[in-house]
Each structure stands twice: as C-alpha cells, then as structure tokens.
C-alpha cells in the first residue's frame, strides 16, 4: 500500500470535521473522496499534506509516518497537491509557476544563488527543459511566458496540476480539479488523469462531478459529516443505500 490512513480525526472548535477516517490507497490507482459540501474532504487533504495537524490518527506513506512532519517535508517525501481555491503564484509567469513547483529538483542554495556558477546554470537549464516538456504535455506551452493570472480559469486549474506534477511526486492530491471546467475540458482532464495513472502515478481525487468519478476512479470513499459512510468500487458505492440517502438528503436541503 502506498498510503495508509488510520483513525484520522480533526476537530474545529468542538465540531469534528473529520472523525475516525481510515483508508488505503494502492500504488498506481486513482482513489476518489466524495461527499456533500462540508463533509471534510479538503480537511483530509490538509491533514495529509501537513497544512493542519490531526488531533489523532496516523498517516503512513510508503511505510513512513507523516504526522508531525512539516508540509515541505511531506512534499519532499513525494506528495503534492492542488487547491480547491486556486493558490497560483499569480505574479509569476506560467513557466515560473511550474519551475517553482520543481523546486525540489534543484540543489542550489541561497548563497550559491548569488553567484553565476556553471553548475547552477546547468541545473537551471535542465529544470527549465523538463518544465517546458510538462507544459507541452498538459497543453499550456503556448502560454509559458504569460502571467499566470492572465490565464482563463480552466487553464489556471491545469497549471495548478502541472505545478503539482513538476517535482515528480509519487502521490498527487487533486482538490476538485474539474470545478469550473466545461464538459469538454472535464473530459480531456479525465483522459489526462488516466494517462498519468498509466505512467504509475497515484492520485487522490476530490470531485463533485459523479460522471468523472465513475469514469476514472478505481475506488471511492464516501464521507458525510466527517464520517466514512461507504467505501468500494464506483459501482458498489453507487448502489449503497447509505450513500443514496446522504446525497438525497443533501438534495432536499438544496431544493
């Protein structure tokens, strides 16, 4: 198992946003987290990436305990993410965003950066080539020199994915990557995710669009009010009465 989460719990001021959540993700799979708004999905991402400390529970990645590590250490361990509310470096160009995502590929420190060293230039060149290749793969090569903020929303989401991939992670957490995309964009995103899986990448996916989840996910975990209410293959979960109830309940509230 690549990722093993056990007994994960997080309270916000007495209210449990995540309560005793456990799941296992095998290597090279797409594992989806679904659930109504406020179910605790993003909070689980924040706990895995170290942005928030859990109140209890363990998170093992490649056998290594992640709880207690700083976010940058978790990134260095091979886990990166995208954000539900985009967190692009909007003052940078598209290429610079990806180069920054590839930070872990470089070695040059603060002091060396002040000088013009051949080793540094070689490193810069290599990382830039890889970043451009990644942009091409994701279809943003034309926009490489544009300010990130100038991109249309759908491309900003893609750029966040590119940035998350730039350091060569082994697990990527995608928080609603299709939100705000039109149906064509969503379908090509789904295809891209499947392609990444073929290359051996493991992904955790939060997604509200059921069609996408059914299409790409290998396994699905359903949350409601911070609790796990079901886990299984997309087909199993879809047929689960608890899940239907949770979603219908939500529909009632919305209507």
């Amino acid at each position, binding site marked *: 198992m690549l990722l093993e989460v056990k007994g994960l719990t997080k309270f916000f001021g007495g209210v449990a946003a995540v309560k005793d959540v456990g799941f296992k993700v095998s290597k090279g799979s797409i594992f989806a987290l679904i659930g109504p708004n406020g179910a605790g999905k993003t909070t689980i991402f*924040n706990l895995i990436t170290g*942005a*928030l400390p859990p109140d209890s529970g363990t998170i093992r990645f490649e056998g290594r305990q992640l709880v207690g590590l700083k976010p940058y250490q978790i990134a260095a361990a091979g886990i990166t993410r995208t954000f539900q509310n985009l967190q692009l470096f909007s003052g940078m160009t598209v290429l610079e965003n990806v180069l920054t995502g590839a930070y872990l590929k470089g070695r040059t420190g603060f002091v060396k950066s002040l000088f013009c060293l051949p080793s540094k230039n070689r490193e810069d060149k290599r990382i830039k080539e890889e970043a451009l290749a990644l942009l091409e793969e994701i279809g943003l090569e034309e926009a490489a020199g544009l300010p990130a903020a100038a991109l249309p929303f759908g491309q900003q989401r893609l750029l966040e994915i590119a940035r998350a991939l730039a350091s060569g992670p082994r697990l990527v957490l995608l928080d609603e990557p299709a939100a705000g995309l039109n149906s064509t964009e969503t379908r090509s995103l789904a295809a891209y995710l499947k392609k990444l899986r073929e290359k051996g990448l493991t992904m955790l996916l939060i997604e509200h669009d059921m069609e996408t989840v059914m299409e790409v996910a290998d396994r699905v975990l359903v949350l409601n009010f911070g609790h796990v209410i079901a886990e299984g293959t997309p087909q199993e979960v879809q047929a689960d009465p608890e899940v239907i109830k949770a979603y219908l309940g939500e529909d009632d509230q919305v209507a």
Partner: protein
Amino acid sequence: MHIADQLLQLLFTGLTLGSIYSLIALALVTTFNITGILNLAQGEFVALGALLAVSMYAAGMPMAAAFTVSVLLVAMLGGFLERFAIHTARGASGLTLIIITIGLSISLRGLALLIWGTETYSLPAFSKGGPLFIGGAAVNPQSLWIFGLTAITLAGLYAFFELTYWGKAVKASVINRAAARLVGINPHTVSFLAFTASGALGAAAGIFIAPITMTTYDMGFMLGLKGFVAAVIGGLSNVGGAVLGGILLGILESYSAGLISSGLKDAIAIIILLAVLLIRPEGIIGAIRERKI
C-alpha cells in the same frame, strides 16, 4: 526615607504611569476591536491634545475651555484621518494599513515639531494644594484625576458595549458584517466614529497627564508604544485586560526605574512586548480569526 516608604512611593508612581498607559491602551483596543486596525498614531493624539491645551491655556483661555476645545480639535483630526487615509485605503492588506498609520504618526510628529519646536511645556495641576500623604508616600492630586479618567473611561466603554443597544449592535457588527447591515449599522460610519472617539480620548489623556509629565512634540511615540504593550499584555482585544496590562506595565517600569536604573524604563516595556510576542504568541494571535485554507 524608609525602604518600605520608598517601595510604596514607587507603587503610586507606577499606578499613575499605569493609568496613563491604560487610557491609551483603551483607545487602541477599542479601535482595534471595531476596525481591525492597530492605530500606531494613537500616541500622537495624546501629544497633540496636550500641546494644543498648553498653547490655548497660555493664550489666556480658562483650563476647562482649553480642555474642551483641544479634545474637540483632536477628535476632528482623528475623524479626518480616518476619512483621508483609512477609509480611502479600505480593503488594503493589514500590512499596508500599519504602514499608513506609521506614516500618519511620523507626519503628525513632524507637524508638532514645526509648530511647537523642541521645547518642553507644562500645564498647571487641575486642583490646587500640595500632595496627599498615604503611609509615608506622597500622592500627587493630579494622579487622582488620572485614576478618575481611567475609571470613567473603562466604565463608559463597558456600559456602552454591554448595556446599550448601539454598543451591542456595534459589537455584533464586528463579528458579522452582514448582521451589521440588518441592524442598521454602517461599518464605515462605525470606523469613522471609532477614530473620532480615540482622538478625543487620546487628547483627554494627554491633557490630564500634561501637569505631571514633560510635554514635548515627541512624547506621543513612546506613550503610544507603551499603550500598545499594555494592550498586548491584556490580549489586544480585551478592554479589561488592557487596563490590567497598563497598570502592570506602569508598576514594573516604576520599580525597575527606581530600583535598578532609570535608563531601563523604556527598555522594560519593549522587553515585555518582545517577550509576549515571541513566547506567548498564541495568547494574542487568537484575537485574529484563523484563515481558512
């Protein structure tokens, strides 16, 4: 003088100093609670209030009139600055707003320097007669005026925010902007009023302390900073805590200046500030709502 008398004397000095800091801290905390802005120009309101009153008194105005006019003028200045700088920059980052209040503070100080020069001024005490003796220690009657002003201000703020409809509505509007509109509170007006009131309170504090401190163009900087230290000790958003913090700071300063070295007086406040900020940041950071990721 007996050592016990000396300690008592230092205590009274400390209480007087502490009341002054408390007054400034009260103004800071009230504006911070209402607007989320820490007004680093608050100390200049104190200095300007005192200097204006000094000039008007010297020009022959009765003390009560000089007091009233100077409080009104500084209140207007507070309101004007809110409209001119804070309101115009609304929506800017917290850092921008701090830099703005620092800019206002040094401009006001420069203005005071231009008008009043580097001389030291003073006002006569509010009431005639020599010091009162308690135990073996002397208490300046002006200190009693200052205690009185602090007590009235604290009681007034408490009564306004806890007992009146408008006070409660303002408190609610700080927590929830949407609710503010519902009860008919306009946040912009409230911010304007908060700065006006803190101008008035600062000026009043300045005039009350003018008879017992050196009134100079640059007195506001350290006073404002110490008011801030008092507020930080008290938790930054807590009115009662601000008063306690001020008193504690005053007493600590008085004893360290009296028993160790007078040069240490200003350093003590800064050391406390750094200690609170660095060692117990969670105590004050709690005042700012955690940002959602």
